[in-house]
């Protein structure tokens, strides 16, 4: 028991330092790196970066191009700075053959976000459902939730008294059975809020990868199977409800291709390459001129500009995510790091990451010091060898406990 408890103490100390030391290192030495705000000018066809009040054109190789004055930037990016342009009388009546006004631009601009943290999370097994056609103009908070049962039915529960609404459950279950929805539901997306221009209901993906749109209209079920092109199998659905009502969302297939789902259930490919909602942060800034799609992950940040009419790629710029100097130095000190959370999900688990072979040199030196120190302490040869081998693998994380927990 003595040996076991001592070994556990050293293991605990090693694990604690593998978390605490890199955390303290990053806290004490912020790397100071930041990504400028990058947009795309529909007028000049250039990417324009802005950081701390300074703007410049981004060259295709990512280097800094010519500087752009504030007034010029406003004119080059009318989809974003239309209020400023309008207030100073510089907003024309039309741009690129499209009629523009602050009202038109305001109503057609949209921002859509998808974060892996919101996708990779444990959802409750009951889902709220709104009334898509409320009796009054404004939407009302949901009065019922539904659950899916193991025998392929929907069960509606009244929020007021937590009882099952048998009539509605039977009606919806029948519609799902009639439309051939294969349970269990693989994925779903909905935007349950009263602050939205219209209700697109639920986008659901069944067990066969088929996409459906479910709505509750005047208490009655509406379920539409959405035809996907070819043999595409849907993997992830994302609902989008913009004021212009042109779209109801996106669907990503199992190959990582993204499709736009129109309000008439027309599905068109969005030419942004591979997108994995479970790994990539997505930001779409849409306007009547273009959609600027920003896809960021641990490896790179890509800005893709697509045509809002046919969703084809107009331009793209990719910035690789490089290690900062501080991170590079850290890789020579820490052979790995331990973390329990991540920006990419909402789960807690042990994450041993950032493995670095560069730290082997420091580990080797520390292992030699360990041998010297432990021999001076007259430890048994087997203990010296085990400690040196341990330090060679986990480096400074075991070296400190060996020196201090004597």
């Amino acid at each position, binding site marked *: 028991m003595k040996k076991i408890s001592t070994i556990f103490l050293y293991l605990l100390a090693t694990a604690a330092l593998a978390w605490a030391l890199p955390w303290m290192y990053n806290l004490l030495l912020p790397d100071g790196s930041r990504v400028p705000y990058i947009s795309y000018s529909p007028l000049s066809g250039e990417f324009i970066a802005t950081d701390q009040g300074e703007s410049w054109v981004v060259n295709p190789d990512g280097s800094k191009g010519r500087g752009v004055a504030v007034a010029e930037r406003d004119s080059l990016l009318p989809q974003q700075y239309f209020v400023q342009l309008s207030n100073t009388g510089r907003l024309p009546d039309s741009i690129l053959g499209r009629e523009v006004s602050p009202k038109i631009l305001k109503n057609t601009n949209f921002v859509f976000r998808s974060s892996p943290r919101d996708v990779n999370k444990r959802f409750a097994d009951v889902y709220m459902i709104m009334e898509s056609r409320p009796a009054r103009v404004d939407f009302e908070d949901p009065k019922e939730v539904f659950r899916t049962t193991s025998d392929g039915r929907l069960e509606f529960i009244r929020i007021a008294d937590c009882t099952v609404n048998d009539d509605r459950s039977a009606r919806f279950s029948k519609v799902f059975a009639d439309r051939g929805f294969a349970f269990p539901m693989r994925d779903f997306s909905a935007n349950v*809020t009263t602050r939205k221009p219209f209700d697109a209901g639920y986008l659901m993906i069944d067990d066969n990868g088929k996409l459906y749109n479910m709505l509750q209209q005047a208490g009655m079920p509406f379920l539409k199977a959405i035809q996907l092109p070819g043999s595409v199998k849907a993997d992830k659905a994302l609902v989008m409800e913009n004021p212009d009502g042109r779209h109801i969302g996106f669907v990503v297939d199992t190959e990582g291709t993204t499709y736009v789902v129109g309000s008439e259930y027309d599905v068109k490919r969005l030419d942004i390459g591979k997108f994995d909602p479970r790994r990539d942060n997505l930001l779409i800034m849409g306007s009547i001129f273009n959609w600027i799609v920003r896809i960021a992950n641990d490896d790179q940040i890509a800005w893709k500009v697509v045509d809002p009419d046919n969703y084809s790629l107009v331009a793209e710029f990719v910035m690789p995510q490089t290690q900062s100097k501080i991170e590079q130095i850290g890789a020579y000190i820490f052979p790995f790091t331990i973390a329990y959370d991540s920006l990419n999900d909402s789960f807690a688990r042990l994450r041993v990451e950032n493995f670095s072979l560069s730290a082997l040199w420091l580990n080797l030196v520390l292992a030699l010091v360990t041998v010297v120190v432990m021999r001076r302490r007259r430890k048994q040869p087997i203990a010296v060898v085990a400690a040196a081998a341990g330090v060679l693998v986990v480096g400074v994380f075991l070296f400190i406990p060996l020196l201090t*927990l004597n």
Partner: protein
Amino acid sequence: MTRAIFIKEWLKTRRCFIICLALALCFAAYLILSMNRVAVNKGVDHIWLIMLMKDNMFVEAMKYLPVVIAVALAIAQMAPEMSQKRLKLTLHLPYPQTRLVALMLLTGVVELLVIYCMQLSAIAIYDSTFLPHELTSRVVLTTLPWYVAGLTAYFVVSAICLECSTKRRVVLGLLGVCALYPFFVQPAPEAYNCFLPWLVIFGFATSLLSFCSIYRFKEGVQD
């Protein structure tokens, strides 16, 4: 002898146990009354909406309470052993030392489990009166890591109390902070569902630290 050890530990901790139990139940009552107030003022549907849309389980206020209770109980149980030099006598009892220490710790764990179970049951029973079982279990699963953190804190503080060297006590204290950190890192509901079994194993493994302290005490380690 086993019964005698349990009684010895119970006599040491009974006051603290009753205070902690009362505190836990008062906190449960506070959470229940808070939810009831929301339900009366804004309707039950508001609670459902907050739970489903804001991921608020209405139990955040008690997040650190299991740890506080565990620390208090560990101090009440183990501190007199060192301050009144009882540990030397205890270790001289005609009973295997490993089993003796295990029984001491088991007494504390049982008391903590009674407190935790009563508190969690009160919250779960109240929630189940107006929430479906999916949401009730979501509340329970969200709180479970905090109770496991409490058990871990109990073992770590017991080890600190039984430790005879001040320097090692500081080290154990720092290790305890690092050991408790993962239990509170992720606020999302049910974020620990997959990690929880490992945390339970880890929590009980920290009981080994107390044995480490006892062996050092027997070896006569001092500052």
